[in-house]
């Protein structure tokens, strides 16, 4: 770590870990409910658990992205963060808004639009919070000595992500319009601008870990984010097939979304190629595992499992079933969960000065969480395919089908336990690192 202000990142990562732990608890509540054990129904009905689960997911990922930016931007721009105090205020207010939203969900206080449940008054606070964050990042970048491609791509992703939050705040009387613009947020985030953020962080990690020349890495970064936008923007059409708009989207959405896996394939090939090419072998093996892991698992979860149901002929049957949940889990985990884990694994030794580069705990955490999540994906997938067949092809009633597939949720919970064990080990190591210290500063 070269700049003292990079330490801010630690607290964003800590918040991120805390929220992830809570997210998992609510995941179990839903898993059990699907299995028929809904003992908490009176206190935490399914819709509460779900809103909490998915919103915590988004907030822990965003908190991880923010931490990553607070670490990466000073280092790339060669400049201390312009205002450290404001960054801490931003952290605390982010946590407070998040907690307020989560509590509200337990008292039927929400907006009831999938992924955008945060009630309107809190939306405005989110906007102010994110503007503060962006102000700090942009000021640091533009007052700095250097503006590297890596930092520009990362910053561009963050700025666009903030802008795209706004279409989700417009009120429409027409459900079709509502859905149309909800996807400008949800789809253009995960299959657009978040990939820029991921690409920026990945490029930073590869430069540091493999020692390959920055020019080479950044050239491929442009190609990857180019592929992302060219396929992903028009790929939004894969959510417009069946919501009450014209059939043009069946063709446009089908073709362009089918090309979206290319960007993820690009990322996987790029990470592996740079690793092979690199002469410098950085001793931080844990960070290397997560870096290569995120590039590969995101290709499987987002790329391949996305492709599996993106053509209109398939999506007609799988749309809005557990097949979607299967893809949602591995995609979010592989692309955005694991990139956050990678940047944390890389930065912790640098911030704290403790070099836990290659521990058994770290290795076990990596494999258990990934095997667990793959198992969960298979469980959702089997349940989903059975659901599609019985409900959409054979025409058996929803409730009867759900009874038929309950057993897969037992498997889901077993795999989720494995996953949670991995996550617990990762968090244990996070705590063992201790706090950042000025002694870890190097020139």
């Amino acid at each position: 770590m070269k700049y003292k202000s990079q330490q801010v990142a630690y607290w964003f990562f800590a918040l991120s870990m805390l929220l992830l732990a809570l997210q998992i608890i609510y995941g179990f509540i839903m898993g059990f409910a699907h299995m028929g054990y809904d003992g908490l129904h009176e206190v935490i009905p399914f819709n509460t658990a779900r809103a909490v689960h998915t919103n915590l997911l988004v907030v822990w990922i965003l908190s991880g992205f923010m931490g990553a930016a607070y670490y990466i931007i000073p280092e790339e721009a060669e400049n201390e963060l312009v205002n450290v105090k404001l960054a801490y205020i931003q952290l605390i207010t982010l946590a407070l808004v998040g907690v307020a939203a989560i509590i509200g969900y337990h008292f039927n206080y929400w907006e009831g639009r999938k992924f955008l449940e945060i009630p309107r008054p809190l939306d405005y606070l989110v906007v102010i919070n994110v503007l503060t964050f962006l102000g700090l990042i942009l000021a640091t970048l533009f007052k700095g000595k250097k503006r590297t491609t890596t930092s520009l791509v990362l910053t561009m992703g963050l700025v666009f992500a903030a802008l795209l939050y706004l279409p989700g705040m417009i009120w429409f009387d027409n459900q079709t319009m509502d859905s149309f613009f909800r996807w400008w947020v949800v789809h253009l985030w995960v299959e657009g601008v978040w990939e820029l953020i991921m690409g920026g962080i990945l490029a930073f990690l590869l430069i540091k870990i493999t020692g390959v020349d920055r020019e080479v890495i950044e050239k491929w970064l442009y190609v990857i984010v180019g592929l992302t936008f060219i396929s992903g923007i028009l790929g939004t059409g894969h959510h417009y097939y069946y919501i009450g708009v014209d059939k043009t989207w069946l063709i446009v959405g089908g073709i362009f979304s089918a090309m979206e896996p290319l960007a993820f394939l690009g990322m996987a090939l790029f990470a592996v190629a740079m690793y092979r090419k690199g002469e410098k072998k950085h001793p931080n093996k844990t960070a290397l595992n997560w870096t290569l892991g995120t590039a590969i698992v995101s290709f499987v979860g987002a790329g391949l499992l996305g492709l599996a149901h993106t053509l209109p002929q398939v999506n007609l049957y799988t749309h809005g079933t557990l097949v979607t949940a299967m893809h949602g889990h591995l995609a979010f985990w592989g692309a955005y969960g694991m990139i956050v884990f990678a940047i944390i694994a890389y930065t912790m030794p640098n911030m704290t000065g403790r070099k836990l580069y290659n521990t058994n705990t770290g290795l076990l955490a990596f494999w258990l969480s990934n095997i667990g999540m793959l198992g969960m994906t298979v469980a959702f997938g089997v349940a989903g395919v059975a659901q599609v067949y019985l409900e959409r092809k054979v025409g058996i009633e929803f409730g009867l089908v759900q009874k038929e597939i309950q057993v897969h949720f037992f498997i889901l919970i077993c795999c989720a336990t494995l996953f949670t064990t991995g996550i617990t080990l990762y968090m244990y190591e996070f705590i063992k690192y201790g706090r950042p210290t000025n002694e870890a500063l190097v020139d």
Partner: protein
Amino acid sequence: MLSKSQARTFFLGGTVITFAIFLGLSWNSLSNAVPKQTHEENLTSQVVRGKHLWESNNCMGCHTIFGEGAYYAPELTKVIDRRGAPFVKAVLTSKAPWAPNGRKMVAYGFSDNDAEDLIAFFTWIGGVDLNGFPPKPDLKQ
């Protein structure tokens, strides 16, 4: 081989072009297709009140509509066709938890007026032309 500035041009050019096409297609859908396919003329204030209730209770946290939402409870796009309004009204106004096949719904106990608003919303939703969704079960005996 590709240079870095060519790669940047690919990124910026590709983004601008596809985004322009995206805006054009969106404009076309919203101004031409939506009013027709959703029968905007039937979008009464009662339907809008129903939509408010749908959202403020986060019904989408268990159900799907247009295939969007959660996978814990049935798809409701065609619920009025499937069950009929009186059945839906009974479920919505019930003060005891409705639990078909053992899976519980929150007992909202809506007033008659609120239930009527939600039914108006579902009726309007059911009339939207969804390009063939939900599909007909083609293996049904």
